[in-house]
């Protein structure tokens, strides 16, 4: 297992390099750069050139890339070109903020999805299934920004239950205050996350119900609920573990739109602002982080799956 993990991690390095090269190249294809985003009209060309020189933007793109890479390898993500802030410091405060928002929403979505998926699968073709499936379809097609505005209108404006802006009231850091601020964005994200998962659970349930072991159980006279409790649910939950692994990068960049609308001080908003300003060190850092999480998440999913399902292990060994 250790060797397997090490191999997978080693295999990820060229992938991450390729991702970083593509992103870096794409950012530098744009016809303007970060200096344009904060240069003032009174600046002479000479002043702008001096700024470009200071940030190394006057060098050829491959050299800029190597400089950036050398920094990252030394664990130095560098500084935002716009704010001059350490990117590592910024991320250290923003990542926990994003996790605070995304983790509860994802767990909630998962719980809802498992229940709805199992129920729908068990009632395949019946009105209940159709209702759940329609609900999922609506959920998938709801644009997040629009749904967020509806939620703000209803709970924030009309009912006045929750504050609209940010993560805390000014000067407060206590838990009830955080919970009140969390309610609406968390609801929006939960609705964004659960339909996909529910469909996954449903189809997985349906395929399990067609398996021989279910027929055998039925033949032995087991009740439907017993079949579900003892057998089907376990088989359905195993593949869910992989979904959780794959969701890892979402913890960091899973809420770009929601964070922007609710002014939640997380990574998503930070990333979006940086893209607008062509602040490439920030964009690169966030993308590298999120692609690294994709790789790690995949790996985690594979490992968990191997742990959960002996058959995969055996096939892997045979191959």
């Amino acid at each position: 297992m250790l060797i397997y993990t090490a191999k997978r991690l080693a295999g990820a390095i060229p992938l991450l390099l390729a991702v970083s090269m593509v992103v870096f190249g794409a950012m530098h294809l744009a016809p303007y750069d970060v200096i344009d985003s904060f240069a003032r009209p009174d600046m002479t060309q000479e002043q702008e050139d001096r700024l470009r020189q200071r940030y190394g933007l006057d060098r050829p793109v491959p050299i800029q890339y190597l400089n950036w890479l050398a920094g990252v390898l030394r664990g130095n993500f560098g500084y935002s070109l716009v704010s001059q802030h350490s990117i590592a410091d910024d991320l250290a405060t923003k990542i926990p903020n994003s996790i605070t928002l995304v983790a509860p929403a994802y767990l909630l979505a998962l719980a809802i999805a498992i229940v709805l998926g199992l129920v729908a699968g068990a009632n395949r073709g019946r009105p209940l299934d159709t209702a759940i499936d329609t609900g999922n379809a609506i959920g998938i097609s709801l644009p997040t920004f629009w749904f967020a505005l509806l939620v703000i209108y209803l709970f924030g404006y009309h009912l006045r239950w929750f504050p609209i802006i940010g993560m805390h009231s000014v000067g407060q850091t206590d838990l009830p205050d955080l919970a009140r601020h969390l309610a609406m964005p968390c609801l929006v994200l939960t609705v964004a996350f659960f339909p996909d998962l529910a469909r996954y659970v449903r189809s997985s349930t349906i395929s399990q119900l067609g398996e021989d072991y279910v027929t055998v159980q039925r033949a032995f006279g087991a009740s439907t609920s017993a079949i579900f409790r003892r057998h089907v649910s376990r088989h359905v939950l195993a593949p869910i573990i992989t979904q959780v692994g794959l969701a890892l990068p979402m913890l960091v960049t899973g809420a770009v739109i929601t964070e922007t609308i609710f002014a939640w001080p997380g990574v998503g908003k930070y990333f979006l602002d940086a893209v607008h300003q062509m602040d490439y060190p920030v964009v690169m850092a966030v993308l590298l982080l999120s692609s690294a999480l994709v790789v790690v998440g995949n790996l985690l999913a594979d490992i968990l799956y191997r742990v959960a399902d002996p058959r995969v292990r055996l096939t892997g060994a045979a191959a």
Partner: protein
Amino acid sequence: MKSLKTGILSLLVAAPLALAGCGNDGADGGGGGASEDASTGAKTGAFTYVISSDPTSLNPINTGDRWGLTFANIVYQPLARIDGATGEQELDLAESIEASEDGLAVTVKLKPDLKFSDGEALTAADVVFTYNIKAVKDNGNADLLWVRDKPITATAVDDLTVRFDLPYYSAAALSNIATETFILPEHIYGAETDFSGSELAEYIGSGPYTLTEYKRGEYLEFAANPLYSGGQPSIEKLVLRIVSNADTVKAALQTGEVDASYVVPAQLADLEGSPVGIYPYPEGRVAYLGVVTPKVDLKLRQALFFSLDRTQIAKAAWLEEKNYQYAYSILPPSNPYATTDLEKYDIDVDKAKALVAESGVADPTLKLGYDGSDPQQQAEAAVIQSEAQAAGITVELVSLDGGTVFDEIEKGVDSAVDLFLGGYIMGIDPDAYSLLFRTDASANYFSYSNPAVDKLFDDGVAAADQSARKAVYAELQAKIADDAVFFAIADNLKIIAINDRIGGIDQAKLVSIYTFEKFGSLTEK
């Protein structure tokens, strides 16, 4: 804030340059009409004002963005200010400002008993210290304190008197000295050598509020400064809350979660019935249609301008007449030097057709570049296209991404577009506009060159008194209009929505860039 080049280049006269983004995020959205009274009514002891992003720089020496300057104006004070409507000087830290006969020396007397928020006295030494570091070119904001190739120097005559010496006479330099430089305490920053960064170790000033907490991406919180020379502000706490989404801001205004914010015309209908007052005011912006002059024949430019109806263009972009004032020259209508005695290009389709014929260009086709993400520019472009068509001029619309419009037109003759939409805020002093229209100036997007105009800009700065300056600049505006470089559309008013529970708005005074000239004068009703 969008990049400067996306639209507005804004340069305060005497001033640090302020970039004001157009800030037109799609303003329409869900959460429609207000259905209930949202007033919180009660006194909260705080005024919460929305800003759209973190200030780019908190360093008052070099800050140039709207929110950075807003911050500086809250924590620090300048010697004086220039009234945006009249161009008159209003004293702040200074008790008097007097220029010598030859205009080469300016003597500033400070008010007595001025104090920084930490209790130390604010004296002439602090003023000299501030001007000296600002005049250092490496600190990034020295230009206004230089006349041609030499800096203006400051010396302390006594504790309350500072003398500034100018190397050469300059009409503009007088106001450059007096205004928009925020005085820093020498006892705090004296050991600092480099002021080119975007942050300082601490923020101690003499302004109405002191910074108590800054959470990046969330808010800046301030407490009233009891030692402020204008008297302790009556609202104990001031919060600048960072929110970028326009719909979120609108809902927060309706619920009273925030007290004030800039809004756009399209949001006004939704705010009706909410407990917020709407205050439109001119910022001295000129929204315009520009021409890359070397690419388009003069007669054809004039023909195009005569084919346009600025009332229709402005209406398409800003909906209602109360949201804008028509502009006719390179100076905004509120500018004391602005003239209306020039070719206004009021619509005249027959004249336009005649001029097209005179130009000898058969089937003229012009490409108009604009920022496709800006709904106001989209609307302007569509109207221009259809109006020009009536005079037989085909305008092709080229939607570009924000910053690329100005990158494209800076190529001059090689530019892929012939026309472009833009807007700028350059402040009161007409000399600031030379950056746009002087031959080879840094922001001359029009690739415009007329030696007569260059000479008038020189004469304007050298002119002895205001009436002489007025005459020079009137001639200059008329010349640029005749050259059909630039079709002024309107000064679209800045619109701020403020919760009805907040008072003292007249005293605090709505101004360009800083929103409120004196945050300390706001009150809770």
